């Protein structure tokens, strides 16, 4: 068989268990943290709040990738896979920023006609349309 056996595990498997449990604890903490951020003062400036929550998510994903998916113990080949994946995950989304801006600033005719109306306007004080006899 020409299979290459990637048996480059950490020799002492017991310590792995502790690592995993620690990572699990960190993941729970981070989840609670993102929940807290969502309900805290950081949300007053929405962009700061969102950036904080995304950072927390990235940290959690990193923990899962490095430890649960065992990439921490792998060799250089991990970069062959992870860097393109990173590009696809991050750059593709960042490339959409101009689209977000365009959609925020510009309404097509059809969208304008059917759009929901969030703007607050002055209350109108006056007669209501009650029918009259004459």
């Amino acid at each position, binding site marked *: 068989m020409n299979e290459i056996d990637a048996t480059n595990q950490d020799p002492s498997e017991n310590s792995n268990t502790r690592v995993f449990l620690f990572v699990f604890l960190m993941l729970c903490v981070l989840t609670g943290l993102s929940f807290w951020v969502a309900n805290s003062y950081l949300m007053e400036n929405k962009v700061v709040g969102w950036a904080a929550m995304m950072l927390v998510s990235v940290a959690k994903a990193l923990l899962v990738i490095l430890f649960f998916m065992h990439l921490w113990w792998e060799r250089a080949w991990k970069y062959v896979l992870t860097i393109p994946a990173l590009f696809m995950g991050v750059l593709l989304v960042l490339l959409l920023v101009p689209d977000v801006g365009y959609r925020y600033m510009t309404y097509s005719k059809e969208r304008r006609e059917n759009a929901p109306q*969030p703007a607050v306007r002055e209350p109108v004080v006056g007669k209501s349309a009650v029918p009259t006899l004459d």
Partner: protein
Amino acid sequence: MNSKANPSEVTGTTEGGGGEGSHGHIKLKYQPAVPVPKGKLAVWLFLSTEIMFFTALIGTYIVLRFGAPEGSWPTPADVRVLEWLGAVNTFVLICSSVTIVFGMEAAKQDRPAKAKKWLIGTFVLGCVFLGIKAYEYNSKFEHGIHPGAPRSLLYDRADLNYLSAVKSNLDAEILSIEKEKTALVSESAAAHDHGGGLEDLILIRAGLVQWTQKTVGETESPMMRELALESLAHQINPRGSNPRVDAYLASEIADVKNRIAELMGQQEIIDEDVREMQNRVNALSEELKLEPDDSRKSDIESKLAAATEESRKAATKATEVVDLLKPLTDRVNAFEQFSGIHDGLNEHFHLKLPMVIPSGNTWANTYFLMTGFHALHVLGGLVAFLVLLMFRLDRTRAGLMENVGLYWHFVDIVWIFLFPLLYLF
């Protein structure tokens, strides 16, 4: 098998015996690009395609969500999203990631029984995740939030389209209850499914929906039209306090009550007129009967004709006033009945009338799309677990276990990103 294959290890020896005219067979050593088993490499490549897949969906959501102007995206309360439930789901998936890692370690240590137990634990946690997801989906469906037409009851703005949808929905509802009533011929049938009975629905229809139709049809000011429709939407499904609508409703009711008082005053006068006319007609016809003289008769007959005519006119006027009064009194009744309800008619009477939630449909689309595909991936993972459970999970199967674990961790990572994007933003 060493894992440090050297590219320089190209052995260039000939086969066994000497020169039989055979050229030197160069024995090349297989040099994989990445020193991992083929299965593992395949799973990693598959995961990169999955990244592209979910990036597309999440990217769409990002453009739609952040491209929506301030205030026009539904809040979590609007669309019945419970953030804490999402956090629980995140926790469940994280636990399942941990259990499968331990399962893989057990398989590597050649302890198949332990590995199986961990795998079963992962499977159970995955089922718990899907169960919570099903509960969430159900609570959304209950409130009329569906991925799209035809079941979706979400409208972006209160306009004439919305009004006709509310009207047809309410008509269908009332019709079905009435059919039930006639079918079962029992009082209880009317209120079995609905918090309110038939009378409430009829009052809603007459005092709210038909009144709004009337207002919209008769007013000339587009602002008034908008306010009327908005107030209808607000009463069906209030999205927080709306002082504009409150002010409009207050002034409208005051006007209606004034108008009713006026009309009732006029009605009294007209009723008196009617009675008077009727008396005159009666008197004249009496006279006619008793009058023997023909020439005088024709005179009286003409007077009688005129009087009958006037009496008829007065009667028509009376019915006109009654017709004018009916929608006004319906409106006042509806207002008095429903003004104390703060959570909206849909909630209070367990109705499913169309609701106005700005960008609600877009939200529902993206939400169900992303969580739906994610749930399908979770389901696929569960199927993989079931298949895996049929094997003996010893050292030889550690690679297989690792690959399935990689897939499951990826599913977990996708949820780690979905959770804040959908629940917390």
